[in-house]
C-alpha cells in the first residue's frame, strides 16, 4: 500500500526564517556573557619551524590582558572523528604558515591583537615542503617526524581492486590515459568560525560553538581534558551560518577552553575572514592519473586510478585517499577496477571534509575522461553513460549490495531535454569563430550516509508531548542552515499525525538532547530522520492507546491527523491530543507525561544518482568562459520539502561552478604564505555571475529508506565542475586537465590543441 503523505513532500517555510529575516536569529558571534573576554591567536610566519623558546611576559604585562597560553600548557592532543588526524591545541612545532603559536585573552579584541605583538618567539626554521609529489620523495622534509606510524609523509596508502585490470586492459579495444589535477578551495561559509568557553566554579565547562557536531567534539574534549562527559556541556547555538564540511575539526576549542580556565572568565574567539581562508580546513588538492579501457561498443572493461591527495599539515582529509575508490564502483558497471591512493602531508593549510567529501574531485577526473572517450568512439556521451550505468538489482562492488533504486536514466533524459542537448557540437571544437558555444554533462553518485558495513550510522530522537498537545523534539545534531530542523519536524508531524507548527525542535546540546553524530555526509535526513519517524510512531501509538480507553474503540480502528485521534472513516468525531491528555483518567494517573525515544540503525547506504548539464560560451581570444545555463537533474529519493531541496541544489551549482572556474586558495611557492585570503582575491560567485539555473527533481522512492528519501546536501556540487569542463571541451575541443579553468589554463589547453 502506498502511504498517503500530507506533510512530508510539501514545501514549507523553514523554521527559523522569521528570526533570520528580522535579524533576531542568534549566532555564536552574537553572544555576550557577563565579563566575557576576547581571544586572538598568534600564528606562525614560517611554514615549518621548531619553537625553541617563547616569552610571553611583555604581553602579559599589557593592561587588559587576562591570560596568555603557549604549547607549555596547550600541547594537548585533539582527536575528532578520524583516527589518523592528530593535532595539538598548540604544539612546540609549527607545520604551516598560520599554525597556532600562542593565544591571548583580553578585555577586547583590539587589546588581544596588540598583545600578540609582544610575544617573543625564537623559531628554529626548518625546510618545508609544499608540493605533494615532492613530499612523497625519500629526501623530503618530514612534516610529522614524531609519528612513527607514518611512512615519511605518506599518511595513507590504499590499494583496492576488483577483478583483474591487466586482463581487462588487454581485452579493451581502446585505452585512454590522462592526468588531472584539482585545487585547494575554501568552504567560504558566510559566518566565520566562532566559539565561546566558560567554566563554572565547580569545574564544569560549557562551550558554544558554530559547528556541525556537538557530541563528537564534547567526547574529544572530555578525552583531551580527562574529564567525565557529564562535566562538559557543548552547545551548538540554534543558528549556524553555513558549514559545508568546514565546521567541526578545529583544535582552537582546546585553546579557548584553556584560556577561559586560566582567566577565570568566559572567552570568545571569532576568526577573521583571513584566518577562515588560511587556517581552517580546506578541500584537498589532488592529482589523478586515470586509465580506462572500453570495447568498440562502449562497454567499460577496465578502469584504473592512481590518486595523490595533499592532506596539508593536519589531515582529516586523509580518509579521502582511501574512500575515493568507492566512486569507481557506485555509478558504472565495470568488471575490472583498480584504485591506488596516497594521502600525503605537506606544510600547507590543513585539509578536511568539504561538500561532496572524497567524491567531488575524483568525479571531476572520471567524468572528464568518460566524456572524451564517448566522443572518441563515436557515441553520444549520455548514451555511453547510460549503457554502462548500474541498474536496479546490480551489485555495488564496494559493499556487495544491490542498487535498490536509481533515477539516473530519468535524470539524464530530462536533463538533456532541459539543456537542449541536440545543440551540442557532434565533433567537439568543430565550429569556428572567436566565441564558441558548447554543451557538456557529467553524472555522479555519492554515498549517503555511510558506506561500509563496518561503519555504523545511528540516529537518536526524543519526543515529548506537552499537556496542550504540542511537542518538543530533541535531537543531537545541529541545523547548519540547510533546514534540518524543518525536515525533522515534518517527519515527526507526519508520523504522529500532529501539526507541523506545534512541534518545536531543540538541537545539539549535549546536556539536553540525545547523542547525535554529525550534520555531514548528507546523512541526517536518513539517520536522524529515521529515529524521528520511529519516536513519533511510538508517540502516536501511545496516544491511540489512551484514546482507545476513553473512546471505547479498539486501537486498530483509530488513527490520528492534525492533532486529533478519530475512528477510521469518521474523522469529524475525534478527540484532540489535548482532550486526551486532560481527560481525568489520564491526567490524574500521570499518564499524560509521555516521552518516547528511538534509535535508528541505518540498514544500508542508499546512493542518489544524478547529472548536471552545462551550456557555455568560450572566448578563445581571452580564455573567458561564460556559463549560460546549468541544469541539475538529481535523483533525491522522495523530497521531504521540495523547495528546500531546490535551494540546496541551486546552492550547489554556485559552489560547483566556482570550483570549475574561479575558486583556488593560492600559496606563495617559497614561503607557503597565503596569497589570496580575502573575498576580493578569492572569487566566490556573486548574483550577477550566475547562469540561468534549472533544477529537476527525480523521485524514485527507495523501499529501504525513511519515506523513500536520499541524502542530497552534497549532491549538486559534485557533477558541476566536470559538466562545465566538458562543455568547454565541446565548444573548443581543448582538453583541459587542471582546475580551476582560469583564462590562463584554458588558453594553454587551446594552444596545445592547435599543436595537435
Amino acid at each position, binding site marked *: 500500500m502506498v502511504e498517503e503523505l500530507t506533510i512530508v513532500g510539501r514545501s514549507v517555510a523553514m523554521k527559523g526564517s522569521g528570526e533570520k529575516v*528580522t535579524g533576531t536569529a542568534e549566532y555564536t558571534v552574537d553572544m555576550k556573557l557577563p565579563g566575557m573576554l576576547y581571544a586572538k591567536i598568534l600564528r606562525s610566519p614560517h611554514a615549518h619551524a621548531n619553537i625553541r623558546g617563547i616569552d610571553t611576559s611583555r604581553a602579559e604585562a599589557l593592561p587588559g590582558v587576562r591570560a596568555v597560553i603557549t604549547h607549555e600548557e596547550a600541547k594537548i592532543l585533539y582527536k575528532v572523528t578520524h583516527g589518523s588526524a592528530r593535532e595539538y591545541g598548540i604544539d612546540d612545532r609549527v607545520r604551516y604558515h598560520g599554525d597556532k603559536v600562542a593565544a591571548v585573552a583580553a578585555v577586547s579584541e583590539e587589546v588581544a591583537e596588540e598583545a600578540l605583538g609582544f610575544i617573543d618567539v625564537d623559531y628554529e626554521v626548518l625546510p618545508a615542503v609544499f608540493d605533494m609529489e615532492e613530499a612523497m620523495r625519500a629526501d623530503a622534509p618530514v612534516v610529522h617526524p614524531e609519528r612513527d606510524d607514518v611512512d615519511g609523509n605518506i599518511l595513507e596508502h590504499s590499494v583496492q581492486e576488483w577483478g583483474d585490470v591487466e586482463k581487462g586492459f588487454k581485452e579493451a579495444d581502446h585505452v585512454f590515459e590522462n592526468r588531472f589535477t584539482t585545487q585547494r578551495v575554501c568552504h567560504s561559509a558566510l559566518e566565520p568560525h566562532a566559539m565561546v568557553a566558560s567554566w563554572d566554579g565547580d569545574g564544569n565547562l560549557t562551550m558554544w560553538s558554530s559547528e556541525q557536531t556537538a557530541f563528537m567534539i564534547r567526547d574529544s574534549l572530555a578525552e583531551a581534558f580527562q574529564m567525565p562527559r557529564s562535566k562538559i556541556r557543548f552547545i551548538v547555538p540554534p543558528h549556524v551560518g553555513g558549514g559545508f564540511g568546514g565546521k567541526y575539526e578545529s583544535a582552537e576549542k582546546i585553546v579557548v577552553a584553556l584560556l577561559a580556565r586560566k582567566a577565570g572568565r568566559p572567552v570568545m574567539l571569532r576568526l577573521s575572514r583571513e584566518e577562515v581562508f588560511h587556517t581552517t580546513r580546506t578541500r584537498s588538492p589532488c592529482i589523478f592519473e586515470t586509465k580506462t579501457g572500453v570495447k568498440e561498443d562502449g562497454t567499460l572493461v577496465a578502469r584504473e586510478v592512481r590518486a595523490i591527495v595533499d592532506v596539508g599539515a593536519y589531515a582529516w582529509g586523509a580518509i579521502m585517499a582511501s574512500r575515493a575508490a568507492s566512486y569507481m564502483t557506485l555509478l558504472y558497471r565495470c568488471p575490472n577496477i583498480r584504485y591506488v591512493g596516497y594521502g600525503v602531508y605537506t606544510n600547507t593549510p590543513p585539509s578536511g571534509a568539504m561538500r561532496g567529501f572524497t567524491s567531488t574531485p575524483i568525479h571531476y577526473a572520471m567524468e572528464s575522461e568518460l566524456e572524451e572517450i564517448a566522443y572518441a568512439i563515436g557515441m553520444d556521451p549520455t548514451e555511453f553513460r547510460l549503457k554502462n550505468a548500474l541498474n536496479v538489482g546490480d551489485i555495488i562492488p564496494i559493499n556487495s549490495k544491490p542498487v535498490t533504486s536509481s533515477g539516473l536514466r530519468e535524470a539524464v533524459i530530462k536533463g538533456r531535454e532541459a539543456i537542449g542537448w541536440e545543440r551540442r557540437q557532434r565533433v567537439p571544437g568543430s565550429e569556428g569563430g572567436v566565441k564558441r558555444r558548447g554543451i557538456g554533462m557529467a553524472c555522479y553518485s555519492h554515498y549517503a550516509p555511510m558506506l561500509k558495513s563496518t561503519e555504523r550510522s545511528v540516529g537518536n530522537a526524543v519526543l515529548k508531548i506537552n499537556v496542550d498537545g504540542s511537542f518538543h523534539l530533541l535531537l543531537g545534531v545541529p541545523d547548519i542552515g540547510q533546514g534540518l530542523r524543518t525536515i525533522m519536524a515534518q517527519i515527526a508531524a507526519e508520523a504522529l499525525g500532529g501539526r507541523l507548527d506545534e512541534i518545536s525542535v531543540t538541537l545539539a546540546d549535549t546536556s539536553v538532547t540525545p547523542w547525535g553524530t554529525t550534520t555531514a555526509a548528507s546523512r541526517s535526513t536518513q539517520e536522524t530522520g529515521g529515529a524521528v519517524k520511529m519516536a513519533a510512531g511510538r508517540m502516536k501509538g501511545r496516544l491511540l492507546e489512551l484514546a482507545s480507553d476513553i473512546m471505547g474503540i479498539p486501537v486498530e480502528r483509530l488513527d490520528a491527523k492534525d492533532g486529533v485521534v478519530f475512528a477510521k472513516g469518521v474523522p469529524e468525531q475525534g478527540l484532540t491530543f489535548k482532550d486526551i491528555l486532560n481527560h481525568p483518567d489520564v491526567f490524574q494517573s500521570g499518564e499524560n507525561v509521555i516521552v518516547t525515544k528511538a534509535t535508528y540503525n541505518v540498514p544500508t547506504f542508499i546512493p542518489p544518482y544524478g547529472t548536471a548539464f552545462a551550456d557555455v560560451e568560450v572566448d578563445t581570444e581571452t580564455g573567458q568562459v561564460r556559463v549560460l545555463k546549468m541544469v541539475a537533474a538529481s535523483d533525491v529519493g522522495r523530497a521531504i520539502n521540495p523547495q528546500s531541496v531546490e*535551494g540546496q541544489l541551486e546552492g550547489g551549482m554556485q559552489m560547483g561552478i566556482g570550483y570549475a572556474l574561479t575558486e583556488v586558495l593560492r600559496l606563495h611557492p617559497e614561503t607557503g604564505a597565503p596569497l589570496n585570503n580575502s573575498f576580493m582575491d578569492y572569487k566566490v560567485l556573486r548574483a550577477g555571475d550566475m547562469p540561468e539555473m534549472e533544477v529537476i527533481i527525480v523521485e524514485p522512492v527507495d523501499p529501504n529508506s525513511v519515506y523513500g528519501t536520499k541524502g542530497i546536501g552534497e549532491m549538486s556540487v559534485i557533477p558541476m565542475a566536470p559538466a562545465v569542463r566538458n562543455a568547454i571541451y565541446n565548444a573548443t575541443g581543448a582538453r583541459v586537465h587542471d582546475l580551476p579553468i582560469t583564462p590562463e589554463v584554458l588558453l594553454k589547453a587551446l594552444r596545445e590543441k592547435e599543436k595537435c
Partner: protein
Amino acid sequence: MVEKMRIVLRVNGEPREVYVEPGWTLLRVLREDLGLTGAKHGCGNGECGACTVIMDGKAVPSCLVLAASAQGKEIETIESLQTGGEHHPLQRAFIEHGAVQCGFCTPGMIMSAKALLDGNPDPSEEEVREALQGNLCRCTGYKKIVEAVMSVSGREG
C-alpha cells in the same frame, strides 16, 4: 587608553548617543554598543555585504564606515523593518520563496534589496542582481533571493 568621543547617530529614526574611539566602525557600534546584531561581520573589508545597512538612502557596508563619520546621517538597520509585529513585504517574500538558508547573509541582502526598491520600485532582474552584487551568499545560488525581490517589485514571473 585611547580617548573616546561622544557622537549622536540617528538609527532607525531615533537619536542614539555613543562614545567611540576614532577607529571604530559603524558596524562595531551597532553590534557592540547599540545591541543591533542583525548586521553581521562576515569579512571586515566590505567584500561580503553581510553588514549592509542603509545610510541616507544608500546601501553601505557598515564595516567600512567609521562611526564618527556617520554622525548626522540617517541609518536604517534590519531591525527597523518589522512594524507592529508585521513583516515587511521583503521579509515575507524571503520566507515564502525559500530565499533564506543559513541566514547569515539575509539581513544584508534584504537591506540592499530595500535600498534598491526604495529608489526604483520596479527594477528588472538585471538591476536586482546588480544591486545584490556586493552581497555574497554561499547557500542559495541567489535564485530564490532574486525571485523574492522580484516578487515584491511586482515583476514576478
